[in-house]
């Protein structure tokens, strides 16, 4: 089956050929039909969708034209939307109702998007499979026995499973790009500071970035264009004009230099996976791009660096969940005991592990050896990218080393951390980076072909160029058109 894209929906609703109310109803029906199996949503906000749709239709009737008129939108459940349960997939916030709306979400709603619901994630966005959610299990729509990836697993599965036209994810070390690759959709992380973080519940503040997930590059560009730009409520949001990406979408890659990273040798990959990426690089060339080899000698330190900086920031960011003002509270005999009981009961293992690592990395006596050194490594990694971009316009590499894996396949944390090997260096450098579908492999023991994603990354604030290149690749290869959501078995996925 093939659904309408956001671009098509907005056109038809603005033209009066369709209505936001109709779109909202259809999307809601689709969720009712499928989400019992996929489990993308933690809460479905049908009532909110209805009121928003009515408002959008009224505005269209009054003569307004809205860039996202009637576009059904799923929102990762670490973003605040007034009056909605906003949980971060954690027991500690299981019943918390957000009193305000995140800037990025507000901009999409103002532009006519319809909020369908809040999607599942690894608790506090910490994970690469969505299995760290304390509140629900999300399956990969391509193979229900496999993970959707993470942490934005719910948002990606919602789009891949046809339960939303577009969605919002957040990416700290690959949390949009890796699941997008696993589920065969486009997942885009803009430059750090390009999209406001106000209302995004922080995991690692210096890395977190909100980005769009869509079935096409054009849809991702449409959403990006609406939400990018300076926000006075976020001191780290960059105050410089946004170069709209939609007008930069191109059909070929003539004159484009694409960097292939020497250190990311495809020979280390499974032969079938390797063949897909070799073909992808060849397709880039066929479309007119010049492939150049670039070096990222410090990229291999990305994971070690990331797993000091991100936990350090998270140990401080998550301190506020202490049972005093909101969220779960487990009473102890005094304040200290209440803190301990609340946090022991409220946080899952992975969150606790990262809080502990981060607390340690910031402790007196260890700070210089860990946190300060990691910051220096981060600077070196960013420097490597800057050098590489002197000889290319974008860098291409795998978004992940494997297709989606089966539930419970990765039991030790480090093998899970390695899933973000190709995405973390770009996060540390703050670069715009995306995953676009690039082919399929049938994994050993698997029954159906699973998608793979090509990661394309560009210099800071080169979103327009990056999305343009991705669009040319998407149109030239038509992997997205080959995409068809498999018929979902009627057996409900355990939630």
């Amino acid at each position: 089956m093939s659904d309408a894209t956001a671009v098509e929906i907005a056109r038809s609703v603005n033209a009066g050929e369709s209505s936001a109310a109709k779109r909202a109803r259809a999307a809601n029906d689709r969720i009712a039909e499928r989400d019992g199996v996929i489990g993308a949503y933690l809460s479905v906000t049908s009532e909110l969708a209805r009121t928003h749709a009515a408002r959008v239709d009224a505005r269209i009737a009054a003569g307004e034209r809205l860039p996202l008129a009637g576009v059904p939108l799923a929102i990762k459940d670490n973003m605040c939307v007034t009056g909605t349960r906003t949980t971060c997939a954690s027991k500690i916030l299981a019943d918390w109702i957000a009193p305000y709306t995140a800037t990025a979400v507000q901009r999409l709603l103002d532009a006519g998007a319809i909020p369908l619901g809040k999607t599942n994630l690894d608790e506090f966005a910490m994970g690469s499979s969505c299995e760290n959610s304390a509140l629900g299990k999300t399956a990969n729509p391509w193979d229900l026995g496999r993970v959707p990836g993470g942490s934005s697993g719910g948002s990606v599965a919602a789009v891949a499973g046809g339960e939303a036209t577009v969605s919002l994810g957040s990416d700290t070390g690959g949390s949009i790009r890796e699941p997008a690759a696993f589920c065969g959709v486009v997942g885009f992380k803009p430059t750090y500071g390009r999209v406001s973080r106000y209302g995004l519940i922080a995991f690692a503040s210096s890395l977190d970035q909100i980005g769009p997930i869509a079935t096409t590059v054009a849809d991702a560009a449409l959403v990006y264009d609406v939400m990018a730009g300076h926000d006075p409520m976020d001191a780290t949001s960059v105050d410089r004009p946004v170069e709209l990406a939609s007008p930069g979408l191109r059909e070929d890659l003539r004159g484009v230099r694409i960097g292939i990273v020497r250190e990311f040798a495809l020979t280390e990959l499974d032969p079938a996976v390797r063949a897909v990426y070799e073909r992808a690089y060849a397709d880039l060339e066929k479309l007119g791009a010049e492939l150049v080899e670039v070096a990222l000698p410090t990229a291999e330190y990305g994971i070690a660096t990331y797993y000091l900086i991100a936990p350090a920031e998270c140990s401080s960011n998550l301190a506020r969940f202490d049972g005093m003002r909101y969220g779960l509270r487990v009473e102890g005999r005094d304040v200290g005991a209440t803190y301990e009981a609340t946090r022991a009961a409220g946080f899952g293992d992975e969150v606790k592990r990262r809080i502990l690592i981060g607390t340690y990395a910031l402790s007196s006596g260890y700070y210089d050896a860990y946190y300060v050194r990691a910051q220096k490594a981060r600077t070196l990694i960013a420097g490597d990218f800057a050098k590489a971009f002197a000889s290319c316009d974008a860098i291409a590499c795998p978004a992940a080393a494997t297709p989606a894996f089966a539930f419970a396949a990765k039991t030790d944390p480090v093998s899970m951390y390695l899933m973000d090997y190709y995405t973390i260096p770009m996060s540390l450098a703050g670069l715009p980076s995306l995953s676009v579908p690039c082919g399929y492999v049938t994994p050993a023991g698997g029954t159906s072909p699973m998608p793979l994603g090509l990661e394309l990354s560009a210099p800071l604030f080169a979103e327009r160029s990056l999305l343009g290149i991705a669009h040319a690749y998407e149109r030239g290869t038509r992997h997205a058109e080959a995409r068809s959501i498999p018929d979902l078995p009627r057996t409900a996925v355990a939630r």
Partner: protein
Amino acid sequence: MSATLDAAAAPIAIGGVAYEVVMGIECHVELKTETKMFCGCRNVFGAEPNTNVCPVCLGMPGALPVPNRLAIELLVKAGLAFGSEIPAYSKFDRKNYFYPDMPKDYQISQFDMPLTQGGVVPFWLPDGTHGSCRLTRIHLEEDTGKSSHASRDGRIAGSTHSLVDFNRAGVPLMECVSEPDIRSAPAAVAYLEALKRTFVALGVSDVKMEEGSLRCDVNLSLRPVGQEEYGTKTEIKNMNSFNSVRRAIESEMARQAEILENGGRIVQETRGWDEAAGTTHSMRSKEQAHDYRYFPDPDLTPIEFAPLDVTRLRESLVGLPQARIDRFVSDDKLSIAQAHQIVDTPGLADYYDAATALTEKPQATANFVLGDLSRLANETGVPAGESRLGVESLAEIVALVEAKTINSKTAKDLIARVWSDGGSPREIVAAEGLGQVSDSGAIDTLVAAVLAANEKSVADYRAGKTKVMGFLVGQVMKQSRGTANPTLAEERLRAALGDGAE
């Protein structure tokens, strides 16, 4: 004798050895901004609990801080007033610890790159000596909320629950850290007063200790005079007035001296001042000190100060109180107390300066300004500068008194009258004949009348009760409507009574 500049720092004899006290002071001062440090909530004292709050200052999930540029500039002005250096680059750090009145369970503060570094706070001590204390740094941070505990004495022990008011959470706070240069309790108070009058003059803060907009901790230790190494210090907290700072220091000095006298050791700890008991008590020892795990706040970008900004702020510093005090003491020869009093009364220094420029008689002007004018300002609630007694009028009065045209009684009456009704003192004196009567013929007439009307007093005087002279002079003054020259009146009375005795 101690070699310190501070004459108030008399050495303390302990076991036959002369000791001196060494103190450094950390002050937390709430900045007077319209809005809080990192959000748009109003910064006001005394509102209903939890009415000036928002997702940011409540530390709601996902909320982010945005720095208040005005608060940064106010702090930099405060530093510039004391000659501090303003580094081109500064940053905010997170100080991590759990506390129920701290919404994020970390405080945004500054660790290793404060907004200002160095500087000197000069001050005058009441005994007329000059002192100074170096500043280590001034940094910016956010205030916490305020807890109150539901127990009989308001303490946490024995309380069933606690209430937190977050109105104060996120209010901009500057922390001024001094070097250990202070050597006596009066010097500590003089230092704090110097900070206060500068902050008030610059509009940086209200500095109201009773409202908690200035809070200070004193680090205090004793060491033998001449020894370079510092003794073990204690940190004293919870003082709520300059007077309690003085008392707390004296009490803690005595406590430490007694321990040393008895051969004991000082324990490094935090001690709370108990206003009612007049003593300090142990709060927590440093062994339990937190590891605050400071790190740069990733939600905030570094603060950069262009030299032009610093120049602009430096140029905005005019009429700094310390410079005025120095001038009043050195050039005008006022006493330290007079100089402080003039500078510490809002608007009075400007009035005094303008009036003195006309009178060229600083001491006489100061006497009127601090005497009659301050009394009238208190009684009427109108500051001198806003009364109808302009500086020209005061200058006329000073000149009339200096020329002995009017006596001090007339001057006092004139001041009160012009204060409320306005008018030219010189013209009033001329029109109503209030000029001092120094013509002995005219006075003799009054004297004769007074003596005739007060036979009893005359008899008493002659019987040796010379005290009645005052009464008789008063009667002459009354008859003259205050215009008689009192010295001459007494002279003529004595002459008249002496004549009669003969």
